[in-house]
């Protein structure tokens, strides 16, 4: 009898083991598929360009150097694009976080004139869309095309973020606000002194999502921007990928002021492939760096969002 039980357990265990091997194996492979491409790009940008071009750098970097990065930063258009991307990420995130928190808070105030109507007025905009051409014409009529502000202003009022903040503020005990009001605090003071500090977790979530969106957005450059000075990093990279010739021209332009020798030095060391990969790594790295730190905020955000889909 005892032996039978033992045998049964053994049998169960062996099927468990097979299941676990398959399961762990699958997730191992899928995770590798997800991260290997980034690793591949990284080791190729720090290895000898010659070896990289021959396709022998697949697992470990060889003849490590950082010349690619030094040279890429020298390309003038790229520096501008980097600044544009950083600026839009910082400004855009700041504005939308402030606006979302302020509006989310204001829409919890029963006293506000026409509160429900205006709340719906903003939330409804999530569900319809004028379309590409009307949007373009609007931006043009508002004189926003080919300006930096086209990255920022349309992204300030985000209905979804407002819903998130409103839901969060509603969970804060209202006695907090009442106490402050008895002490003579106005609505703005209440917002700055009480609501902003207590809403930190949800604001962090919004900030991260909006920062990633701003950093990654290339759609608005594609549609609204023709001025090369305003290209974002993403869009510039897209140009690099598709037009090897224009890339050469860009390198020439970038170093045009520096004279022919400078240009030759760049051209001999860099291949379009190496530049492409290097820029990709530069664009991806900020995200890879902030991501693990803020992962819990992402998860929290998507959970709160799912409450009020």
């Amino acid at each position: 009898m005892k032996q039978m039980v033992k045998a049964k357990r053994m049998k169960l265990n062996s099927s468990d083991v097979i299941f676990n091997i398959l399961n762990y194996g699958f997730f191992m492979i899928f995770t590798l598929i997800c991260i290997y491409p980034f690793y591949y790009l990284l080791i190729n940008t720090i290895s000898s360009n010659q070896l990289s071009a021959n396709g022998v750098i697949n697992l470990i970097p060889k003849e490590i150097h950082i010349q690619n990065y030094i040279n890429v930063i020298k390309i003038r258009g790229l520096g501008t694009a980097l600044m544009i991307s950083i600026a839009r990420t910082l400004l855009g995130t700041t504005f939308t976080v402030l606006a979302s928190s302020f509006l989310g808070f204001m829409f919890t105030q029963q006293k506000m004139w026409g509160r429900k109507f205006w709340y719906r007025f903003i939330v409804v905009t999530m569900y319809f869309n004028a379309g590409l051409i009307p949007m373009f014409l609007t931006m043009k009529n508002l004189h926003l095309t080919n300006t930096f502000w086209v990255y920022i202003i349309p992204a300030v009022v985000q209905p979804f973020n407002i819903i998130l903040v409103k839901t969060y503020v509603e969970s804060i005990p209202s006695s907090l606000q009442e106490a402050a009001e008895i002490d003579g605090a106005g609505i703005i003071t209440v917002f700055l002194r009480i609501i902003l500090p207590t809403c930190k977790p949800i604001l962090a979530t919004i900030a991260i999502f909006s920062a990633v969106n701003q950093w990654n957005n290339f759609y608005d450059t594609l549609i609204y921007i023709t001025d090369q000075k305003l290209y974002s990093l993403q869009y510039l990279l897209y140009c690099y990928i598709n037009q090897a010739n224009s890339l050469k021209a860009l390198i020439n332009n970038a170093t045009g002021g520096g004279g022919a020798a400078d240009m030759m030095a760049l051209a001999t060391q860099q291949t379009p492939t190496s530049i492409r990969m290097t820029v990709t790594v530069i664009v991806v790295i900020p995200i890879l760096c902030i991501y693990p730190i803020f992962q819990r905020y992402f998860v929290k955000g998507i959970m709160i969002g799912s409450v009020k889909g």
Partner: protein
Amino acid sequence: MQNILSLQTKESEKVKKKKNVQGKIMFLYIVPFLILSFAFSYFPLHGWAYAFFDYRPPLKLSQCDFVGMQWFKMLFSNKTQVSQLLKVMINTFAMSGLTLATSFLPVIFAIFLSEIKCKWFKNFVQTFTTVPNFISWVMVYSVAYSLFTNTGMVNTILMNLGVISTPLKFLDGDSHTWLSMLVWYTWKGLGWGSIMYLAAIAGVDQELYDAAKVDGANRFKLMRYITLPALMPTFFVLLMLAVANFLNNGLDQYYVFQNSFNKAHIQVLDLYVYNIGMTGKSPSLATAIGMLKSIVSVTLLFIVNHVSKRVRGETII
């Protein structure tokens, strides 16, 4: 007594008035944001008027001919236009259909990942499989380009191994375009898509599992009869939203991957509107298509919302 009462009502009226004034002031605070919302969400709707004109970009709308429903008629009667639109619609339906058909993958992913008991490994998988979601489509394309061009890693390895003699055309060919788009979409979104389900699984009462185990349920029965039903509400909402977005494949993915070779199979509705509208050929036609698309999407959303109300007793929007 009456005096006190009237005093009280006076007082409360005063408070009410004060509240009214406060409420108006609060409204004034949010006016700038209402203007922004109006400017970028409601005001653009006036652009639908362009669908009824023969708009030529440098001109003003008042200088263009009013053509009434001509563009809409053309969409459904002009032969070349119809066949072109048909192709685009087939692509759109194929991509959305494939996405819908694989929308259960994150559920499976989450269920099996939750079977992994080793905590650090689970976190490791969760962290790194969600990373591609935060990379833009341009980046994805750049990655694809580095790995899959004629001189990319995959082709080089296959050639060195002698498996193939000429490079496979992963990116600049038109075979399996839909499939490769689906694969990239899955690569980017699978890990992220499963996060919500993982959280839902974490919320399932552990006692349910214990009770079922006592009754002799094995691993797969637990999955089938406890975990899966717990995930269904979330799955249903997301599925409904995906149905509502059936026509909105988005532009980014298809734009970055399109080239002259795969255009016939990659051009979904959003991309088509961009291609005919922004390259200057016929912005009015593009507006007309965009307008129809928006109307269909909103209608779908209402239908889906209604279905959700009937099935679950809860609305989505």
